[in-house]
């Protein structure tokens, strides 16, 4: 008579190899070095965290007219409260803040409309890229429909930072694509013009380019023809990041197998058709992380306009800390600015990860 083999059920793993205890042992106390590292890290946390919380929240002062109100010994957030409008809008006249707010809301609504499925995306893109900038420009600068004219020298704060960042990002991407395509071109003159431009710009720091924009460009233009400093700086920032963008996109173009180029040619597509319909959609998708890194770099680099005398968010904070009523509040100002920059940059990098996952069609090498 056959005896059926019945395995007895597996024993559970030993109790010290599962659960919280095992996790703690494995992560914190697996070796003498590890124990030392754990204690060292805890000590660092002890040194940093409690004093920071105490300074930023427990001992902090939230309201007050000047520095004298801050007697608790902690952070003087009253300074940020007092200067909040200036940090956001610069010296833009207070009665006209609604114009900036309106433009911001319009942009948010337009971008939010991408989520609606029934809307024509191409049409929406054209509205955002062509019509919106014109509307926004006249809202900011004024001069028509009885809107008061606001000089660009009054623009500042987070408003200016965002403006520089958004315009730079929107303008540098297409320019970078053109430069990258030019660098990969078979035409020797086109190629060398692009190579020389990209390599020259990449070899020098942004400051030199900003100085060039603010000091040197007027020397190169004929008498009488001179344009706004903000515009010159914008052009400088855009050209600068376009060179970096071009190198990122070139990486994507190189990663597309030759067969794709040949297949597009075999279909009888023209150069621009094959680029726009076949190559670029694939190439850009591959280099999203690089593109977003360049965007983040550009956004952080907008702080440099302070050096050529424009007052973006950091510039406004820097000048506010020199206010006699609020001496000694630099740390609060920098903490506030740092938090804003950090939130925007970190948000951008997380968003890019989400986009990357969404667009991933599984062609990537794993």
């Amino acid at each position, binding site marked *: 008579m056959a005896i059926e083999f019945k395995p007895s059920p597996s024993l559970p793993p030993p109790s010290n190899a599962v659960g919280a205890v095992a996790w703690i042992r494995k992560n914190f106390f697996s070796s003498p070095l590890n124990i030392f590292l754990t204690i060292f890290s805890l000590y660092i946390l002890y040194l940093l965290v409690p004093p920071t919380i105490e300074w930023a929240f427990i001992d902090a002062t939230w309201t007050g007219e000047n520095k004298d109100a801050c007697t608790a010994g902690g952070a003087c957030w009253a300074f940020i409260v007092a200067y909040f409008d200036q940090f956001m809008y610069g010296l833009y006249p207070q009665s006209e803040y609604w114009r900036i707010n309106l433009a911001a809301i319009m942009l948010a609504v337009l971008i939010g409309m991408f989520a609606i499925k029934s809307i024509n995306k191409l049409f929406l893109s054209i509205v955002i890229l062509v019509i919106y900038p014109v509307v926004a420009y006249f809202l900011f600068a004024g001069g028509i429909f009885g809107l008061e004219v606001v000089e660009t020298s009054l623009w500042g704060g987070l408003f200016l930072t965002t403006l520089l960042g958004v315009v730079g990002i929107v303008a540098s991407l297409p320019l970078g694509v053109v430069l990258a395509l030019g660098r990969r071109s078979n035409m020797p003159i086109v190629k060398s013009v692009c190579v020389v431009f990209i390599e020259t710009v990449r*070899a020098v720091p942004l400051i030199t380019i900003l100085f060039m924009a603010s000091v040197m460009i007027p020397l190169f233009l004929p008498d009488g023809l001179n344009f706004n400093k903000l515009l010159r700086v914008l052009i400088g920032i855009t050209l600068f990041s376009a060179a970096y963008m071009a190198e990122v996109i070139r990486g994507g173009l190189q990663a597309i197998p030759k067969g794709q180029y040949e297949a597009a040619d075999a279909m009888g597509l023209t150069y621009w058709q094959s680029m726009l319909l076949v190559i670029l959609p694939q190439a850009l998708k591959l280099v999203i992380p690089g593109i977003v890194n360049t965007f983040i770099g550009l956004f*952080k680099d907008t702080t440099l306009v302070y050096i050529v005398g424009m007052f973006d968010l950091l510039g406004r904070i820097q000048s506010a800390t020199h206010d006699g009523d609020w001496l000694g509040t630099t*740390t609060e100002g920098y903490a506030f*600015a740092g938090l804003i920059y950090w939130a925007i940059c970190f948000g951008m990098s997380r968003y890019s990860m989400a986009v990357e996952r969404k667009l991933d069609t599984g062609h990537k090498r794993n």
Partner: protein
Amino acid sequence: MSEKTTTNTSFFNDAGNRALLFQVVLLTAVVAIGYYLFHNLQANLQDQGISTGFAFLNEPAGFPILIHLIEYTEAGTYGRAFLVALINTMLISFIGIALATIIGVVMGLARLSQNWLVAKLATVYIETLRNIPLLLQMFFWYFAVLAALPHPRDSIIFGDFFLNKRGIYSPNPIFEDGFGVVIFGFLACVVAAIALIVWAKKRQTRTGEWFPAYWTSFAIIIFGTIICYLLAGSPVTFDLPEASRFNVKGGMVLVPEFVAVLVALSTYTGAFIAEIVRAGILSVSWGQTEAARSLGMRDSITQRLIVLPQALRVIIPPLTSQYLNLAKNSSLGAAIAYPELVAVVMGTTLNQTGQAIETIGLCMLVYGSLSLSISFFMNWYNKKMSLVER
């Protein structure tokens, strides 16, 4: 070429002709714009009475420079000031690169650590510093941290080191006559150490016997130099900083401008390098480590001979661009008055002489050559480390 033209396409439908035409148009446009700008420039310079050329470099500068490694006084020329600034830029770049590399490697490894707490702390460090503008960080170190240090009269004292608002004071070594012997001895030890490494490598390829050449040569250099130093009769004395009632005098001073730029540059770039190091190490597949273990290699050998060489191949190209970024970002020191190239040449010199074209051109040239030389060196190193494919 002649076959192409035999087909009955019109002139403009031929790809070659169109390319030629397009390039001619582009070239004409570039030349025309260039000529137009140059023409305007000449007219403008004439109108404003600015003379061109580098003659101004020989004129006395008349402004002091806070940090100068070579002799410099207010009576020095603009040329001399330029040289001082150039040395300051190179000083901060090289020290910054060294520090950033150390921070980056430590933080990159820490983020990969098995210890959960260490890995999380490293992640917080990296994600915080990477996402905050460098200029803001520099301001923070300079205006918030270093400016909050005590006045000179209540300096923080560690032995012969003083820490206060005006900087970090440390003993200043003074090299006396016999010091040449020590330098000579040090160089001799280095040569001996290199010879030892070469010999050990040759012997290992020949016989398979292993010799701890790196540790031995390290010991040779350290102890050899110390012996030379003692034999030469200890030819170094220290100028110690002394606290008087309101100030600290003597010694070597690290001014806050230098410290702020250095700390900001190296911690910021270090965060980027940490991510590069982490990506490099993760790119070496775990199978390589397992294979090395199954061959019976010790962990340290596995890391040094198997993982590191393969990781370096991934690490070096992005590391190069981080080094270049650091060198270029040192120009931000201008914002907190560290006297580097941009501050001295494009700031003070430009303001005093009005020679915009020359000064900005000079700066771009210097940064261009600095970038080129760093990338040249790193390309050479990359080639040396890269996979030899047959």
